[in-house]
């Protein structure tokens, strides 16, 4: 009775010794460098967020296993909820109050994944859907609880300090200011994140007024190291052949092409190439989100089209959208079109559907 959302390619089908559990464990390990970089630059709040969301996700999986009369051990055995929780911890603001993290994780696991039939059946990436859910539900709190990155941020935003903010509703502004003071340069960014601060310039059509990012020193270096950590994790995944090289390559190539084209056509709206590649969720998206084996397209050609569509939407939404980043929206829209891409790129089985007058 279960409708299969994934396209199954015609034979031959090869068996791979790798299991879901192993894939998820390796993905979790590949995300660890980014996790540590996040703790270093954004403070220990990230650790709390990961704890909250993984515990919530675990409980949600148990509830689902119970309601579906499945064995509880198997319903938490696939570890996919840990990956969801880790990506949520990395994307949510580090100081967001715990009840929002719980709600977002429960939404991601219960509604985005289990309501569609559990792992392997979900249409939308749970972590990104949860992130978008929070982004449009509580934009004010999302904006107030970000920390602008600074080296050694975990000294000021220690476990104890962030605990007070996350669980006891203390003022997030204090930690934010202390972390900001850690930077050597005293330039004042108006927004919480760099992309957020460019939004006003973009809306008024003067993107050139935004000063170039200095990756060598100060808080912007955090973004660079985070991107490098994601790259490292992505290379690990590529080495274990968990994600497809063609998806990553076509994503980056098409992103570069679309940004250069956009720069030519809409010079006042499109950000520079380095900002597009390093800031926001581009790196996370390229290696960990669009390559999600469940929610991307199911055919070889389809995956390339999926990656290109995603890159196109990222550039487009970053130019015209009213939110600061575009990766989550672009991924959700591409997820929604994945079944269509599957249907359009289905591979012809050998000997079936050949053309008249020739093989």
């Amino acid at each position, binding site marked *: 009775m279960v409708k299969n959302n994934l396209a199954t390619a015609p034979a031959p089908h090869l068996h791979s010794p790798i299991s879901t559990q192993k894939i998820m464990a390796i993905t979790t390990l590949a995300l660890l460098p980014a996790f540590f970089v996040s703790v270093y630059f954004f403070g220990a709040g990230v650790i709390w967020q990961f704890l909250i969301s993984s515990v919530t996700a675990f409980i949600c999986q148990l509830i689902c296993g119970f309601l579906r*009369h*499945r*064995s509880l051990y*198997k319903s938490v055995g696939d570890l996919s909820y840990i990956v969801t929780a880790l990506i949520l911890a990395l994307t949510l603001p580090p100081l967001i*109050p715990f*009840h929002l993290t719980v*709600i977002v994780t429960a939404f991601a696991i219960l*509604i985005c994944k289990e309501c569609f039939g559990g792992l392997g059946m979900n249409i939308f990436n749970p972590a990104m859907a949860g992130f978008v*859910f929070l982004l*449009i*539900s*509580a*934009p004010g*709190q999302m904006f107030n609880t970000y920390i602008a990155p600074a080296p050694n941020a975990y000294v000021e935003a220690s476990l104890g300090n962030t605990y007070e903010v996350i669980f006891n*509703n203390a003022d997030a502004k204090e930690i934010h200011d202390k972390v900001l003071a850690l930077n050597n340069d005293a330039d004042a960014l108006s927004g919480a994140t760099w992309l957020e601060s460019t939004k006003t310039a973009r809306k008024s059509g003067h993107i050139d007024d935004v000063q170039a990012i200095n990756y060598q020193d100060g808080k912007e270096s955090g973004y660079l190291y985070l991107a490098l950590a994601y790259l490292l994790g992505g290379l690990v995944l590529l080495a274990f052949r968990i994600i497809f090289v063609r998806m990553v390559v076509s994503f980056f190539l098409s992103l570069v092409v679309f940004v250069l084209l956009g720069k030519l056509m809409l010079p006042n709206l499109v950000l520079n190439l380095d900002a597009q590649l390093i800031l926001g969720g581009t790196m996370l998206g390229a290696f960990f989100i669009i390559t999600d084996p469940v929610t991307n397209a199911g055919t070889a050609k389809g995956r390339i089209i999926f990656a290109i569509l995603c890159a196109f939407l990222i550039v487009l939404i970053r130019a015209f959208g009213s939110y600061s980043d575009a990766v989550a929206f672009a991924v959700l829209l591409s997820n929604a079109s994945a079944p269509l891409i599957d249907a359009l790129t289905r591979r012809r089985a050998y000997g079936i559907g050949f053309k008249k007058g020739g093989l």
Partner: protein
Amino acid sequence: MCNNELNTVEGVSDKELKKKVKADGLIAVFLKGLWSNNPGLCQLLGLCPLLAITNSAINALGLAIATLVVVMFSSLVISILRRCIFREVRIPLYVVLIATLVTVVRFYVEAYFPDLYDSLGIYLSLIVTNCVIMGRAEAFAGRNNPLRSLADALGSGLGFGLVLFVLGCIREIIGSGTLFAGASSLLGPIGENLECHILTSDYTLLIGILPPGGFFALAMLIALKNAWAMHKRNKIENSLKIKSIRY
């Protein structure tokens, strides 16, 4: 011969079928519309106003009352006139009848509840195209006597209004943290005491009053109703499962 007795495909004779239809009493017809064949939760009719207007409990209540009035009068009039209406032109005639009633209701609301009129906007006029009313007229009022049609319209209208109201309450509490905000526009001075704040702005989720929240909340209500209605069957099914091969 067997064929002479069985007129229908299902093997139920015409006599039996007629008896079955007549067995539905007034209360059964009413309850069917209210619960087991609820327009909002089972037939999924009238989703446009259901999702668009339920961002606050009072708006939902206003639209629910308006819809109830229109569906009752339209069902009554159509069932009285059902012998004079030609089958070929019944839909245009229904639309004209319903549009007349909606216009009356709309002017009444505009005159006596101007605040509610402003917040309901176009959805008050759009009751004309509400599938619940058309569906009741087409499926029931056009082929039943006035009393039964009235019972059916009352059940369906109340059922639809109840879904609207519950959905409005849930979405208002989640989305803006209040309940019955602006109740004075509908209920007058009594309504002012009804307004209450449940959640502070730190705990509200804006998505509740946005369109996706409407879909989520409605889906949850439908799931709850199905779980309730099929509880017994599911219990038996689950008890028949073989425990050692569950996955």
